[in-house]
C-alpha cells in the first residue's frame, strides 16, 4: 500500500485563525478542505507539507446565499455535491451545477469542495505519478526536477488546468474573495489564474480563497460540456463553458471559456466576439465554433491525444451553443433508430437514473447533465 506521510493537522474555527496558522507555518503548511486531490498527491510525494490547515471546521466557509436576481455567493468549502444540487444554482447558473456535478465521482463530490476545485493543482501525466515513477524518468520542474518532460525545450511548466468549475465561473463572470494577512481582496476569476503549470494561481500562498460570487443571472444562459474518456471519475481533458446574455434573441454578451487545454482556463475571445450582436443560428454557431480553437494549446500530457483534444474544441463549442440555442431538441433522422431522439449529446440514462428534480437530468456522452431548459 502507498502510505500517507505523517503531518500535523490544524483545525481553525474561523477564517482569521486559518490565515494566522497559515502565516505562522509559512511554506511548510498547506490548506485542506475535501482533500480529494491533496491526499493522493501527498501519497505520491508531490506535496510534502509538514502541516495542514483544515478548512472544514470553519462554518462561514460553507453555504450558498443570495439568488439569481441579485447574485449568488458560494462559500469556498461548500461541497461540490451541494453546489450541484442547489436549486438556484441549477436554475439560474446551470453550467455551474453541471460542472460541479461532473467532477470525479459521486463519493468524492461529497467530500470535495468548490474552492478546492477552483484551486485544484494542475495536472500532467509526467507529474501525477509516484515518487519512484518520477525518479525513474528523471523528475520534472514541477516537482524535484528542472526540465519539462512534455516540452523539454521549454523554460516553463505545461501542466494542465484541470478544474471543471473554473472555466464556468470565468464564463459566468464570477469573482473570488481571498483572505490573507493583509486583509481581504476580491478579484475576477479570470484574473485568478496564470498561464504557468507551477504558478497557476494568482492567489498568494498565504491567502485563503473564501468565497465565489456570481453576478446577477438575469438574461444569462450557460452550458458546460466536458470531454473525458469515461462517464465518471475522470478529470476533464477539454471543458467548454459558454455563457451568453441575450436581449430577445440577440446575443449582447458572450463568453466562451475553454478548460483543460492549457495551464489556465482560456477564453476563446474570437468566438465570444463572433457571437455578439448575432442570433444563435446554425451559421453563427458554426462561425463562432470555428473561431474557438485558437487559444487551445493542448500537449501530449493527458488522456487522449492532443490533436484529438484540439480538434474537438470546435465540435464541443458548436454543441454547447446549439444547446443554448435550443437547436438540439429535434430528432436526428440519421441514426437509424426509432423511438429515441437523437440529438446533440444524446442522453444516456444513468443506471437507476433519477437524480432528483421534476425532470430527471440525464448524463450524456460528453458527461453533461441535460435537464430542463434554462429559464430565460
Amino acid at each position: 500500500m502507498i502510505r500517507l506521510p505523517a503531518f500535523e493537522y490544524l483545525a481553525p474555527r474561523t477564517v482569521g485563525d486559518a490565515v494566522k496558522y497559515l502565516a505562522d507555518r509559512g511554506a511548510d503548511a498547506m490548506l485542506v478542505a475535501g482533500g480529494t486531490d491533496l491526499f493522493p498527491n501527498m501519497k505520491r510525494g508531490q506535496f510534502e507539507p509538514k502541516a495542514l490547515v483544515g478548512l472544514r471546521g470553519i462554518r462561514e466557509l460553507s453555504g450558498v446565499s443570495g439568488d439569481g436576481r441579485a447574485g449568488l455567493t458560494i462559500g469556498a468549502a461548500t461541497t461540490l455535491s451541494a453546489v450541484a444540487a442547489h436549486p438556484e444554482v441549477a436554475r439560474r447558473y446551470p453550467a455551474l451545477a453541471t460542472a460541479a456535478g461532473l467532477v470525479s465521482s459521486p463519493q468524492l463530490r461529497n467530500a470535495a469542495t468548490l474552492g478546492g476545485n477552483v484551486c485544484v493543482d494542475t495536472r500532467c501525466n509526467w507529474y501525477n505519478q509516484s515518487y519512484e515513477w518520477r525518479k525513474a524518468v528523471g523528475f520534472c520542474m514541477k516537482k524535484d526536477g528542472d526540465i519539462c518532460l512534455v516540452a523539454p525545450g521549454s523554460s516553463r511548466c505545461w501542466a494542465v488546468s484541470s478544474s471543471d468549475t473554473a472555466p464556468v465561473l470565468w464564463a459566468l463572470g464570477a469573482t473570488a474573495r481571498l483572505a490573507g494577512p493583509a486583509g481581504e481582496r476580491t478579484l475576477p476569476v479570470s484574473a485568478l489564474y496564470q498561464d504557468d503549470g507551477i504558478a497557476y494561481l494568482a492567489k498568494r500562498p498565504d491567502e485563503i480563497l473564501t468565497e465565489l460570487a456570481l453576478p446577477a443571472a438575469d438574461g444569462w444562459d450557460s452550458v458546460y460540456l466536458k470531454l473525458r474518456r469515461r462517464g465518471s471519475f475522470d478529470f476533464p481533458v477539454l471543458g467548454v463553458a459558454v455563457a451568453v446574455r441575450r436581449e430577445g434573441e440577440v446575443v449582447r454578451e458572450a463568453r466562451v471559456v475553454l478548460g483543460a487545454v492549457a495551464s489556465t482556463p482560456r477564453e476563446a475571445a474570437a468566438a465570444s466576439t463572433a457571437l455578439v450582436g448575432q442570433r444563435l443560428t446554425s451559421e453563427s454557431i458554426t462561425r463562432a465554433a470555428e473561431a474557438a480553437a485558437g487559444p487551445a494549446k493542448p500537449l501530449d500530457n493527458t488522456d487522449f491525444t492532443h490533436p484529438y483534444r484540439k480538434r474537438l474544441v470546435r465540435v464541443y463549442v458548436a454543441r454547447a451553443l446549439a444547446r443554448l440555442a435550443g437547436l438540439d431538441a429535434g430528432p436526428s433522422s440519421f441514426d437509424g433508430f426509432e423511438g429515441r431522439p437523437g440529438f446533440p449529446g444524446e442522453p444516456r440514462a444513468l443506471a437507476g437514473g433519477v437524480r432528483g428534480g421534476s425532470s430527471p437530468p440525464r448524463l450524456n456522452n460528453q458527461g453533461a447533465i441535460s435537464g430542463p431548459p434554462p429559464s430565460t
Partner: protein
Amino acid sequence: MSKRFTVVGQPLPKIDAWGKVTGDTRFADDMVLPRMAFGKLLRSPHAHARVRAIDTARAKTVPGVYAVITGADLPRVKFGILPVSQDEEALCTEKVRMVGDAVAAVAAVDEETADRACRLIDVDYEPLPALMSIQESLAHPEVRIHEYGDGPNVHKNVALQFGDVEAAFAASDLVREDVFFYEGNTHLPMEQHAAVAHATADGKLTLWSSTQTPHYVHRLLARILDMPAAHIRVIAAPVGGGFGGKLDPFAHEIAACRLSQLIGRPVKIACTREEVFYIHRGRHPVLMWIKTGFTKAGDITGCHLKTWLDGGAYGSYGVASTFYTGVINPVTYKMPVYKFEGARIFTNKPPCGPKRGHGTPQPRFALEVQLDKAAEQLGLDPADMRRRILVEPFTKTANHLTVTTIGLGECIDKVVEASGWRDKVSRYRAAAEVDAPKPLWQPRRRRGVGIACSSYMTGAGTAIYWNSMPHSGVVLRADRSGGVTVLCGATDIGQGSDSILAYLVAEVLGLDPKDVHVHPADTSLTPVDLGSYSSRVTLMCGQAAIQAAERLRSAIFKAVAAKLDVDAGALAMRERKVGVPDDWEKAVDFARAVELGEAMHGVLAFAGSYAPPKRAGKYKGGGVGPSPCYSYTACVVELSVDEDTGEVELHDVWIGHDIGRALNPLLVEGQVEGSVYMGIGEAVMEAQVFRKHVHKAPSMLEYKSPTTLETPEIHTMLVETDDPEGPFGAKEAGQGPLLPVMPAIANAIYHAVGVRVDEIPITPEKVLKGLELKRQGKAARVGPDRVPLFTFKQPLVVESAFGAPAEAIAVRPFSDTPS
C-alpha cells in the same frame, strides 16, 4: 436426457457471498499476526541495466529496520512457472530487464520505515540499451535481453502445418490477407497482490498468499528457497480477483519468506497498485497476419496465421501463450487445413502471460473481423455465414483437437433472434448510406450491429509439468453432525469454485449446500489441484468431487441398507435423509446414516481424483490445446458511433453461451457479464503502454477501464448441451464469453460508419481517423500495414485430422467406470 436435479440448476447465492458482502472476508492484506513486520521491495528504475553493486549499509541503519536483503541472500537459482523458461530471479543479481524488477527487500516495523529504508539502498547500475517493442528487439540482435531462446531476443519460435494450405488457397474463390494488432492490457484485479510469510523456530515456513495456484507456488518455493517442500505450507488467502495475474510465483512472496526466515517474525508484503501494473503477466500485445481462403458459399478452405507476441522481459507462461495464439482457432469453424507460425519476442517491459482467454482473444479478433470482411465480399450475411460452417460435434480439428458437443448454432440463433439482427443489419446499413451534409453543431450518431463467435477450452489437457498424477483431487469427510467437509486444493478467485464444490457434493448426497464446508486450499491439508487457470476448476475439481461423493454415498448406502434390511441399490439420498424412495417414512437422517456408516467402515473419508482424457495430438506441441470439451459463444453488439467525435457508445450486448449445463445459472451469468465488461474495456480503451521505459498510466484513475456507465445492457442466453466430459454435463464460463466481444464491437463499428479499425483498442481517435480517410475517398481502414521481417522455423508438417470422428470413448485415468 432427463436428469433430475435438486441443487444443480438453481440460482443459489455463492457460499462466500455473505462474507464478501459484509466485509467479513479477510484477504491477505487484512492479516495481522503478532510481531509481524512489514516488507517492501526496491525495484529497478531502469528498463535494462547491469547491476554492478548493491550497498544496503545506509538502509540497515534506519531505526525500525529488521533486515535488508538482496539476491545474494537467496539461493542462486533461476525459476519460472514453465520448466522450459527458468529465467527469473526474485531479487535480480546480475541484470535488471524491466522497470519494476526487484533488486532488494526490506523488513521493518512498519511500511513507512520499510519505504524510507528502500530509498537508502544504493544500487550501482550500468544502463544497457532498452528494447521496447517487437521491432526494436528484432532489429537489435546485438543487445540480448536473455541468453536463451530460439534466437536473439526470440523466446519461442513455433511453426505447425496441418495439410497443404497453399493448395487450399489455390482452390478458393476468395483469399483474404489481413494484418491486425492487439495492444496489451492488464488484469486489473480489485485486490492488489499481497502475501504473509511466517517462518517458525522449527525451521518450517507458512505462506498465505493471494494466489491462483498454491500448488505451483509450493513446488517452486522449495526450489527457490532450497528447503524441503514438506516443510513449506502454502495457504491460499481469499483472492480478490485473479484473471490470470496471480498465477506465477512472485518476488514479493519469495522476499517475504526469506525475510521472515532471517528475522523470525511474520512478514507481510502488500503490493501497491503501481507495482501490480509491473507484476503484470497480462495480455500480450500481438501483431497478426492471417490469410484465409473461402468458397463462394462461405466455406473456409484453409487458414494460415502468423503471430508475433511482445512477451516482455521474462518467459512466464509465454511458451504456452505463443501456442494459444494459434491452436484454438480451428475449434470453431470447419477449417480443413491450417498452418500456424508464432514467435514470442523478449522486450524490456513487464512480462506478459495469461489473462482471461490466454493468448486466444488476439487471433480470435483477427479471424472474426476477417470473416466479417469476407462475408461482405461474398455477399453473405455474417451470421448466416458463420452458422453454416460450424465444426461438427464429436469430430477432430485439423490440428487434432477433439470437439465433443457444440451448441454454437443454437447460440447464434438465440442472439440473432433476440437482437433483431435481421431487421437491424439491413436498416442500419441503409441509414449509413445516407450522407447528407449537416451542420457542425448537429451530432450524427450512426447505429450498427456486429456479430462474432468463439470457443474456449474447459481446462488444459496437460499439466505445466509432465506427470501421470491427478490434475485435481478432493477428499470428502462426513461428520457425525451430518455436515460434510470438502478438502480441495482449488482456489476460489471470485469465480465461485468453492460454491460449485458445495453444490455438487450436496447434489450427490441430498444435502443443502450450507451443510457442506469447503476448506480453502492449503498444501498441508488439501489434495493437489493445479490451480485456477484455463477454465479447469469446475470441470476437474467437479468431477473429482462427484467421484468422492459417490464413493461416500455408496459406503453410507451399504450401512443404511444393513440397518433397514434393504438392497443398497434401492436407496436414495435427498432432503438430508437416506432411504428407499417408495418407503420414505423409514428413511434415516443423514447424520444418523453417517453414524451407521462410521460404525460399519470406520472414519468416513473418501478421495476423488480427476485427470483429463489422454487425447493430445501425437506431435511436438500437441500438448497445448487439447481440453476435455470446449465452450462456445456467440455475441451480437449494438452501438452507435458519433461521427464528429469518434466516440462509440455501446447500447446492448446479446450473448449466447454454450455452458454444457449451468450448475448455477446465476453464477454463469455473472461470469458472462464480467467477461463482456472486461472485453469492452479491451476493445475500446485499455492499453498497457510504456513511455520512457515506464508504464504510462499505472493507476486506477489513468489506466482507463470502463465503469458501470460504459457498460451496456447485457442479455445473457445460456445453451445447455450436456457434455459427456463435464460434471453433470457442465462446461466453462469464466473465459470464453470474453472472446467474441472485441471483434463484435469492431464489426459493429464498421456496420455503423464503414470504418475498419483493425487494431485494439478502438479509440475515438482511430475511429475519427478512419472517418477522415473515408471522407477523402481513401480506404477507411486504420491498423497496421506491415509485419516484421522474420524467419519462422521450418514447420512441423502433420497430416490434418479434420473431420475424423472423435475416439468413441475417451480414456479417463482415474475414473471409477472405465467404459
